[in-house]
């Protein structure tokens, strides 16, 4: 169900961001510099010379690897590196301040309410256009007004809205496409939730059009090429300061886009850890009532734009020397153009689902935003950062809390996953192929004979029905898309075969009479992987063993 509350009723703290920006940056600089100076005073590897040298070394390596186009910048870093040995402590301190200021300025975002207003008006119909069946210009225009049916936003929306008024939201979606940040931004508008700030890869800012919107809608720049500690400190502290000051934020805990399409379980906890730190700082500052809420979300595509590239990357990574990527006749640009063309003429759809929020320690929260322990008692979250005599700074403790939070998030994602017909049919067909070939090893399956890729339609329908029944009976597996839940298995299979057969460059599966023929096993594997957390049906496991 979609809220009819206008977004302006939700608390849009980003609206005041520009006026606050310099103060936030100054606070970040004060903390990062102060921490490094204190650590340097203790000596050892934390000396300023070591910190500055780490920056110089990393920057020089990065620029040398970039092909020597930026020689002046490279020379500056070499010059600083050479000067380090002769600098006084005061000069090193000054250089540290300068660098922290420099990286802070590079990271910081912007928020323009006019751009936000424009995007709020334009984004929904634009996305609707993108995800609607468009056969002609007239249909395209009609699609602009029919977008709601193609994109669903559901889940614990009312709770998220209540929490946005009681504290700071940290939205943590799954990540499988470069379209995710646009999609989640749209979902927040549709759900009458406030906009969020988030760290986006600097590479996404190279396109001037995208960069304009991202920079003006609260995104800050994350340069993943900068791997030295000082830069990571700047990023984390900036995020911490934003959260402390009530700016709703978004992290993709999976890190980069999920290559396999398996629902993420191994989360990267770096920026997520700033949630605990920000709350601890709030408590230390005498404001334990300033709560933070971590809201899991899943982004569920019926068909994924970059599926072929992602699964190629995944198989190359997991298979190591067993699998070699063979490029086909399309260049990367050609593939993208082809995908977009297919997208515009094909029925796509997606569901963004918000789960119940957690506190920064992985506890559930009730409808009033109070933390609940595992037994359901209200618990004061500030007690987790207090020792016997008040708030205690303890990085190791906070890292463990973040690990607990990450575990709760990872547990919630399968539950909140929404299955489209494409993923369900892919699972059923893939299981049949494994039975035919007598192995579940994808690398062996890729070399399996063609006859193992044929599945009788009646078998596929029966398997699909069994899978849908299992998912319907077990909420921990996830949930069926409402359209799927309302159809019989044969109709769901038809819908899936249509999608899987026409969206990508090569048909993943096609129907030939009373048989289905798998044409692209890698992509079938990709779509099947969304159900990876659902254990194999005992019948399938037994049959595979028997053939093997």
């Amino acid at each position: 169900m979609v809220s009819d509350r206008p977004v302006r009723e939700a608390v849009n703290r980003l609206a005041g961001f520009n006026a606050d920006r310099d103060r936030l940056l100054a606070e970040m600089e004060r903390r990062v510099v102060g921490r490094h100076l204190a650590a340097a005073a203790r000596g050892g590897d934390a000396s300023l010379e070591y910190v500055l040298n780490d920056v110089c070394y990393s920057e020089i390596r990065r620029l040398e690897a970039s092909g020597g186009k930026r020689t002046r910048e490279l020379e500056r870093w070499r010059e600083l590196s050479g000067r380090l040995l002769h600098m006084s402590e005061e000069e090193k301190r000054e250089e540290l301040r300068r660098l922290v200021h420099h990286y802070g300025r590079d990271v910081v975002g912007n928020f323009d309410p006019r751009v936000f207003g424009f995007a709020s008006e334009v984004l929904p119909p634009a996305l609707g256009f993108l995800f609607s069946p468009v056969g002609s210009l007239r249909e395209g225009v009609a699609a602009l007004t029919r977008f709601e049916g193609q994109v669903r936003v559901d889940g614990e929306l009312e709770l998220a809205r209540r929490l946005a008024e009681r504290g700071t939201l940290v939205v943590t979606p799954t990540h499988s496409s470069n379209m995710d940040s646009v999609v989640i931004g749209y979902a927040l508008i549709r759900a009458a939730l406030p906009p969020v700030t988030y760290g986006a890869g600097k590479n996404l800012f190279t396109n001037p059009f995208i960069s304009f919107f991202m920079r003006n809608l609260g995104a800050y720049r994350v340069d993943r090429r900068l791997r030295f500690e000082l830069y990571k400190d700047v990023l984390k502290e900036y995020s911490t300061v934003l959260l402390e000051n009530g700016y709703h934020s978004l992290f993709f805990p999976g890190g980069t886009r999920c290559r396999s399409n398996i629902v993420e379980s191994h989360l990267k906890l770096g920026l997520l850890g700033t949630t605990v730190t920000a709350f601890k700082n709030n408590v230390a500052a005498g404001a334990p009532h300033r709560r933070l809420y971590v809201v899991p979300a899943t982004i569920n595509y019926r068909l994924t734009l970059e599926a072929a590239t992602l699964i190629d990357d995944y198989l190359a990574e997991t298979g190591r020397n067993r699998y070699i990527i063979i490029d086909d006749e399309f260049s990367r640009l050609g593939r993208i153009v082809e995908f977009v063309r297919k997208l515009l003429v094909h029925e796509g759809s997606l569901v963004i689902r918000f789960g119940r929020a957690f506190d920064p320690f992985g506890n559930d929260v009730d409808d009033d935003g109070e933390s609940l322990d595992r037994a359901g008692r209200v618990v004061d979250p500030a007690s987790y950062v207090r020792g016997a005599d008040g708030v205690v700074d303890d990085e190791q403790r906070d890292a463990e809390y973040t690990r607990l939070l990450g575990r709760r998030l990872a547990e919630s994602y399968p539950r909140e996953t929404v299955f489209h017909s494409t993923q369900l049919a892919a699972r059923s067909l893939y299981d049949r192929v494994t039975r035919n070939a007598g192995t579940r090893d994808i690398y062996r399956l890729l070399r399996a004979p063609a006859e193992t890729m044929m599945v009788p339609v009646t078998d596929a329908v029966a398997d699909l029905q069994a899978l849908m029944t299992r998912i319907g009976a077990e909420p921990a597996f996830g949930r069926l898309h409402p359209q799927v839940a309302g159809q019989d298995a044969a109709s769901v299979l038809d819908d899936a075969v249509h999608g899987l057969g026409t969206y990508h460059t090569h048909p993943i599966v096609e129907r030939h009479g009373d048989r289905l023929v798998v044409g692209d096993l890698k992509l079938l594997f990709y779509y099947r992987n969304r159900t990876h957390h659902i254990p194999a049906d005992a019948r399938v496991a037994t049959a595979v063993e028997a053939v093997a």
Partner: protein
Amino acid sequence: MTAASRADTVGIVGAGRFGTALASVVARAGRPVVLWSRDANVVASIQNERRSPRLPDAPLPPPLEATRDPRRLAASARLIVLAVASTDIRQRARELGEVIDGSHLVVHAIGAFAAPGEDRCSDVVAEATPALRIGALAGPALPLDMAAGQFASMVVASRFTEVTSEARRLLNAPPVLRVYGSGDLVGVELSAALAGAYSMALGMADVMGIGPGPRAVLVTRALAEASRLVHAAGGDPRSFAGLAGLGNMLVRTSPGSQARDYLLGNRLGKGERPAEGEWTEGARAAVAGARLARRLAVRMPLVAGMAAVLTGAMSPREAANLAADTVAAEE
């Protein structure tokens, strides 16, 4: 009590033999201890006579206070040691959960799985209380030795360094008790639980008259299969070779041992089949460990054999053959 003394006070849940012995050691080191018992007689005896009917020889000097009020325990101490039987852990953790908050550090001293089932006790504490900073205390410290002031060592394990460091600070009482630290909570908990099962196996084997060679094989195979289970459960396989695993096993199977697990093993070896009500922590650990091993697909012939003997599915001789017939592969 002031905030400062709350930081320096040890709270102990359960005035059984181990809880009382630990309270005695800590109190003798001059640190305040609050011991929570549900038994009015025990509380009265400690408060009025400075002795416990459960461990009469243990000195219980005044820094030790016994109480029936759990709120008194929670308000007085930040570090709380849960020293109850595995059959009571779920109920006592629930009661404790009503009075503590997230600032408490909870360490359990239960060398067993939480009965019934194969849950680790730290998971039960996490489910039943607001505490997240949780640890486990284990090792070859016998209550009578501790009460008599003899040398004993234990290990405290937690993923939170704060828990291990605070537990060590407050429980270390050399020369009587030395407490080591570990970050391997899973490994220490499983090792402590399985040590009871293997003590029972050795008790059974000894009464059946096995020689020193096969006995040594049994001990080393126990170490190998326990380490496999610890690893599969996400712990450090080396943990079983430490105080919680091997240490516990050796102390319970030493010559003249009166450890309950070992004695139960003796009875099994003589062909008796004790009713479930007579089972020890080690017996329950054998059955729970066998279930956990099946779930994690870990081969554990010794634990599986002991579980089969306890449930009557196998005779002691058949269980011994099962262990002996294990295919020898690379060690």
